[in-house]
């Protein structure tokens, strides 16, 4: 399954200084474009958020980088090489709902699945793999649950297990699809702490996120997406009300309980303050 654009770019090193470099990517389902002509650059070592309204193509972007959906056009480079050659360097945390949690398997087993890529075909996981998986479970605070069947976990615990599975992959670029969706505040803090620690170890992280208020607290790089790229860059520059409004259109006030007029039309950068103070978060009080 070698694609035309990979044929052309085979072996060619392109933009090696970027963790992720996407050129002219268009993805469509049944001729309806979900991603329109995406140009995206993610430098190494950042903790980047991808935000945008429902149907903006956030998950599709992640899947395109992983080669799980076939683009209609465009190139994706990971650390300078075509993405399909680099899949082993990418760690992936899918949305929790993509798997069957009644599957007869244990927490430890799911985490070890992250190591299957390194093992290759047929070779079985052994003692070393178990130890790595336990280490990862330790990191996400789930070691005590290692022999549980996975349906016995809460949503937040399931998310942590997925995170541990990505950790053992020991990837350089991590793609996380809504890791904080539907988890309690404690788990969310735990997860973001881990993501920041990964960043401090030089990893690059691209996180599909849904909560605009926590953006400045959690991330240092921001991609605003709505079928096309609205804005991208260091969070401090991109996180403006004008940009957000352009991304979400009129939904923004409704979505996040902010008065539609906050900041006034065309305000340059007062967004952050306004956004941060809007509506205290459930877990915020102690």
């Amino acid at each position, binding site marked *: 399954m070698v694609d035309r654009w990979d044929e052309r770019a085979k072996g060619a090193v392109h933009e090696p200084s970027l963790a992720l470099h996407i050129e002219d990517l268009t993805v469509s389902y049944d001729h309806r474009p979900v991603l329109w002509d995406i140009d995206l650059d993610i430098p190494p070592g950042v903790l980047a958020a991808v935000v945008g309204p429902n149907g903006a193509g956030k998950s599709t972007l992640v899947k395109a980088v992983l080669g799980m959906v076939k683009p209609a056009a465009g190139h994706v480079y990971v650390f300078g090489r075509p993405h399909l050659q680099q899949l082993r360097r990418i760690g992936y945390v899918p949305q929790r709902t993509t798997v069957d949690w009644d599957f007869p398997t244990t927490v430890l087993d799911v985490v070890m*699945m992250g190591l299957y890529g390194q093992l*290759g075909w047929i070779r079985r996981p052994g003692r070393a793999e178990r130890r790595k998986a336990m280490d990862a479970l330790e990191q996400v605070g789930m070691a005590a649950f290692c022999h549980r069947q996975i349906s016995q976990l809460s949503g937040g615990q399931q998310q942590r297990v997925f995170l541990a599975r990505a950790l053992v992959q020991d990837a350089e670029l991590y793609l996380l699809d809504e890791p904080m969706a539907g988890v309690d505040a404690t788990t969310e803090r735990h997860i973001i702490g881990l993501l920041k620690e990964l960043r401090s170890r030089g990893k690059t992280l691209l996180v599909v996120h849904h909560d605009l208020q926590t953006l400045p607290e959690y991330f240092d790089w921001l991609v605003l997406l709505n079928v096309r790229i609205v804005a991208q860059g260091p969070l401090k520059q991109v996180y403006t009300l004008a940009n957000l409004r352009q991304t979400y259109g009129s939904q923004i006030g409704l979505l996040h309980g902010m008065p539609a007029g906050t900041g006034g039309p065309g305000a340059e950068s007062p967004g952050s303050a306004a956004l941060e103070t809007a509506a205290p978060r459930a877990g915020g009080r102690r």
Partner: protein
Amino acid sequence: MLAAFFDNPELMFMTIGALVGVAASVLGAFLVLRGTSLYTDAISHSVLLGIVLVYLATGEVNSPYQLVGAAAAGLLTVYLSELLTSSRLLKRDAAVGLVFPALFALAMLLIGLYARRVHIDADAVLLGELAFAWLDTVPIGEYAVPRSLVTMGIIALADVLFVGLFFKELKLATFDAGLARALGFRPRLLFYGLLFLTSVTAVGAFDAVGAVLFIALVIVPPAAAHLLTDRLWLMVIGGGAIALFASAGGYWAAMRWDVSIGGMMAVVNGLILLAAFFLGPRHGLLARLLRGRRQRAEAHVRMLLVHLYTHEGDEQAERENAALALEHHLRWPAEQARRVVAQAEALGLVTSEPEGQRLHLTGAGREAAREVLEPWRRR
């Protein structure tokens, strides 16, 4: 000694039945978990098209090419069904239901037109007849070995090897196909490999147990094993064990009541499934019922703790935190209120003085209530 084995029809029937059962159930585990077990139904019908086409081409009914043709027809069924499903114009079940009757009908048409001399007996197709399997033998060395035993032996070995060798890959591809792809495995290839073997096994099992019973043997043992365990490898091995037991038990029952051997094997499998359904340790109906009752009881105790906690220290405490008040305020019948209070006292979460009247939270009870109300305090 070997001669005694091959000449013993009882052992022969049981061994062939066991081979079919084990071969079917190790593949079935993954089909069941993937939610595509009904492909077995489709395949076991459409393999007939492959068998007929190979017969028309070679004039032989029992050649190894038959297996190849049948497997190709089985894969074609799956491929066409997946193609129709991916068009998004039809749901998978409808697509499967469209494809296999068409292929089956085509096979019947071809038989009617060109192969009238070949007798296809509806009973044999649906139920098979294990008793005849003994009569058709091939010479191996000095022994006359039933042909079914040889083919099923090879097929079962291939199935077990495939599942054993690619256990890790099959597990990942079934649980999370997306990750399997991202890690460089080929989930689609594995899936087609699985269904290829299912097709081959269906043909091999055809003589012995027929199409419908084959479906039962693919689905029922792993489904029963799934109710009994939370580990995939146990589910695969347990499914095989259940199939083994069912073939022995089924044979015995068939002799006892003088009925179809294959049919009785399926019945025993069904009984095991039924038992697992009701009595399974975690997923069984009974266990679920008991767990539900326990959880309700725990929830009631927690409700009581929270009620006491919210009113603790305010001026209404006198009124609210009396055992009697529970009936009015929480609308608990007297009997239930008494039971919940007794339970909370037994757990050391609540004390009452005088006996059964004014209720107080203990330290542990207060802690438990706060844990409910302020979940973020939990680590």
